[in-house]
């Protein structure tokens, strides 16, 4: 036993010696950087590294707050996923870089029949998927059949794949009553037809959504249900690797069909959950573009010569919703009183640092059919008190306000928003209890109508008003995304008609009328349309943030 003990102590000595050496090494490595200022040293380190490796490669690091859920775009509605898949996979129709105007994508032209029941797409020729197979009409058909039909061999339904964005946008899946797509027909190698059961006013807008991008059929065959970790498309960048919660690496597609693009050699999406840490990383040169800048930091970024500030155009809508079917908020006067009592101006100034506009309609101002004649409810404490008395609550009342547990672009700080509203309503004698639920139960319980007042928002993805108005306020969607439990026959009728109308001007009028009715009925207090801010290092060129929160980075360059 004695000898054993001394052996152990020897081992221990060795361990300490090793630590000494290690820590001495560590100290040595850090010393020069400490003396010269570390940020600079790191940059030169990396610079020389890059040149050594591949002779002046242009690598851009894009940092965001959360990881992608799936790189199979059809199977998710997650914005962090489409941000990445947008670079790898392409859609038939593209949106313009700064609006929802339609531009050619994988389809160079398209035609619509007069009855709006047949859409013909003429595809780009000579386009190849990253795996070398040809992009053609057959590939388009396979992809759309896969989305539409849960029984399809590439639908992977037994691996829990659900293409719910497809069913939301096209009225259901194959066999469902409302499903608008009857059949996808391959006319020839580069022509494909979509035959519809009923007209759909926003069919073409849908074709631009990142969810309906075209994956290589050969890859679907090869990877099967693992396609969500191995995207293969026709886009400007090829997928290389994905380290979960850390980084996704993409590389230039040398054979990209658009001449001279992309300009970057390598594109890396990095996850840095904390806003503050992300900005520190940008300042130290570790990353090039950051999403999710804290609005309060925007001023500092703007004055910093080494950084560039961006604001995404308004494409969302944050609101406070009422449960209009239950006591006490079935009382319209009470809803009006609350609308007058909330100081939306102050909320936008304080929590959005001015990067947002006060909302009056459940639709962003740039949208088709936005009704600017709606007056909205002005902040007016006296008026609010009057209306409250009129509603029969002179002595005030107690109300539950459900607050979102997660931050979203339209609501960067839901807790603080709730606290401000709590304070606002206290002024007219309404006591607000803030209720907190986790995200999943929050969505479930508000859909089930357990709330009195709640907060939520909506972000546009195809630039069409239907996506906002119908989702949030159509009577058929009560218990789903209509969490106001708002039912107006007139509004439903207008929305239904607008949905199948393909004359866009007529549609605009119907939506305007619907907004006027909604404003009168006050099922919700529109709060804000935010313009989320982002920052990049000033070496980044040609970066244009798109409204839909995901943009192609093919034109982006580094100086």
């Amino acid at each position: 036993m004695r000898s054993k003990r001394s052996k152990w102590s020897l081992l221990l000595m060795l361990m300490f010696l090793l630590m000494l050496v290690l820590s001495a090494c560590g100290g040595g490595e850090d010393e020069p950087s400490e003396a010269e200022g570390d940020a600079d040293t790191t940059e030169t380190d990396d610079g020389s590294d890059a040149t050594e490796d591949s002779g002046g490669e242009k690598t851009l690091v894009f940092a965001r707050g959360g990881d992608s859920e799936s790189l199979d775009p059809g199977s998710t509605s997650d914005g962090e996923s489409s941000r990445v898949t947008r670079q790898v996979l392409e859609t038939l129709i593209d949106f313009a870089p700064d609006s929802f105007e339609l531009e050619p994508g994988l389809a160079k032209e398209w035609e619509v029949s007069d009855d709006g029941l047949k859409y013909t797409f003429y595809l780009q020729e000579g386009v190849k998927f990253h795996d070398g197979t040809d992009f053609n009409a057959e590939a388009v058909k396979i992809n759309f059949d896969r989305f539409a039909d849960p029984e399809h061999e590439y639908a992977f339904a037994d691996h829990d794949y659900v293409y719910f964005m497809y069913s939301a946008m096209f009225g259901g899946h194959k066999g469902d009553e409302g499903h608008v797509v009857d059949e996808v027909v391959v006319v020839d190698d580069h022509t494909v037809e979509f035959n519809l059961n009923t007209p759909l006013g926003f069919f073409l807008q849908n074709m631009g959504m990142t969810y309906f991008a075209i994956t290589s059929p050969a890859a679907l065959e090869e990877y099967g249900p693992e396609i969500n970790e191995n995207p293969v498309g026709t886009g400007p960048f090829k997928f290389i690797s994905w380290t979960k919660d850390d980084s996704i690496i993409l590389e230039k597609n040398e054979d990209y069909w658009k001449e001279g693009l992309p300009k970057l050699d390598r594109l890396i999406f990095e996850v840095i959950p904390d806003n503050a840490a992300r900005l520190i990383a940008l300042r130290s040169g570790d990353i090039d573009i950051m999403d999710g800048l804290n609005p309060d930091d925007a001023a500092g970024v703007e004055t910093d010569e080494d950084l560039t500030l961006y604001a995404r155009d308004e494409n969302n809508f944050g609101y406070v919703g009422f449960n209009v079917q239950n006591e006490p908020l079935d009382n319209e006067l009470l809803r009006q009183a609350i609308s007058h009592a909330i100081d939306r101006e102050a909320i936008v100034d304080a929590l959005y640092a001015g990067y947002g506009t006060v909302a009056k309609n459940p639709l962003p101002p740039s949208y088709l059919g936005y009704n600017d004649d709606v007056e909205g409810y002005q902040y007016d404490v006296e008026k609010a008190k009057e209306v409250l008395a009129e509603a029969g609550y002179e002595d005030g009342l107690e109300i539950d306000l459900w607050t979102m547990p997660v931050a979203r672009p339209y609501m960067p700080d839901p807790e603080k928003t709730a606290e401000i509203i709590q304070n606002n309503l206290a002024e007219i004698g309404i006591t607000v209890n803030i209720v907190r639920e986790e995200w999943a139960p929050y969505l479930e319980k508000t859909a089930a109508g357990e709330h009195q007042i709640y907060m939520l928002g909506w972000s546009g993805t195809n630039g069409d008003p239907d996506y906002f108005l119908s989702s949030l306020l159509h009577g058929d969607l009560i218990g789903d995304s209509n969490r106001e439990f708002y039912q107006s026959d007139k509004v439903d009728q207008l929305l239904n008609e607008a949905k199948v109308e393909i004359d866009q001007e007529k549609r605009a009028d119907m939506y305007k009328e619907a907004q006027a009715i909604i404003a009168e009925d006050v099922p919700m207090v529109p709060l804000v349309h935010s313009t989320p801010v982002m920052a990049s290092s000033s070496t980044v060129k040609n970066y244009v943030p798109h409204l839909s929160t995901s943009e192609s980075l093919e034109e982006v360059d580094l100086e």
Partner: protein
Amino acid sequence: MNNEERQESQLSSPALALQMEEEIRATSPWKDTVRQLRKNKFALIGFIIIITFILVGLFAPLLTPYGYEQQVLQDRLKPPSAEHWLGTDDVGRDIFTRIAYGARISLQVGFFAVTGALIFGTLFGLIAGYFGRWVDMIISRIFDIMLAFPSILLAIAIVAILGASLQNALIAIAIINIPIFGRLVRSKVISLREEEFILAARAQGMKNGRIIFHHILPNSLAPIIVQTTLGFGTAILDAAALGFLGLGAQPPLPEWGKMLADSRDFIQLAPWTLIAPGLCIMLVVLGFNLIGDGLRDALDPRMKN
């Protein structure tokens, strides 16, 4: 010292992990303890810190003209000044006011969580230690299993089940501390059970309950007292951690951990919003640790010179 006992004593003071040899006999010299404590400068400092925070918490409304939820949106993120001693937060609330009211929350959480853990832990520990056999077997295994999870992780899981609120955080913290007290008491009871005076009491036909509460419990008090004091510190720390993760106190309650989490985004713009809440958590925990250390030294004859 057998293995189990060694583990007990370490677990009994996780923040200190100094081996405790609690060999206090039937007639514990309490007066001596108080005298010892008075001489211990560190313990005195600890008492001063804690009493200061208690007073600040109690008299919070007198110390500041503001309410803890009173917002002045125009005055957001103001640096410390004469009006706002510690500055304001991002909705223009006075940070000093929130710190002062926050002291109430932290001290209450510490008190209730530790009391809960103390009651249930002692109860289970007494039962396990006194009755032995399969009762001990079951209770001890449950303690083992609970201790097999890192405590904060278990607390997070419990809060995830119950829903995030201050009250549920308190319950979670109480639960994770039960096995710590339980084991401590159990080992003490086992070492006492075969003592002559207990055997004598039993021989005289004394009932179990009477033996436990009149003989065994009073003789196990010293380590329990020390652990309780130290437990206050860890409970406050855990509550702050849960608050920080958004699983504890909910707005607008001025809980210190929650205040830190809320201010994270302003680390560049308004670092003062981050300093005070963290410093206060540290001071309170330090205070309890100092008192706990002092008590241990005073109650532990081995450390007496």
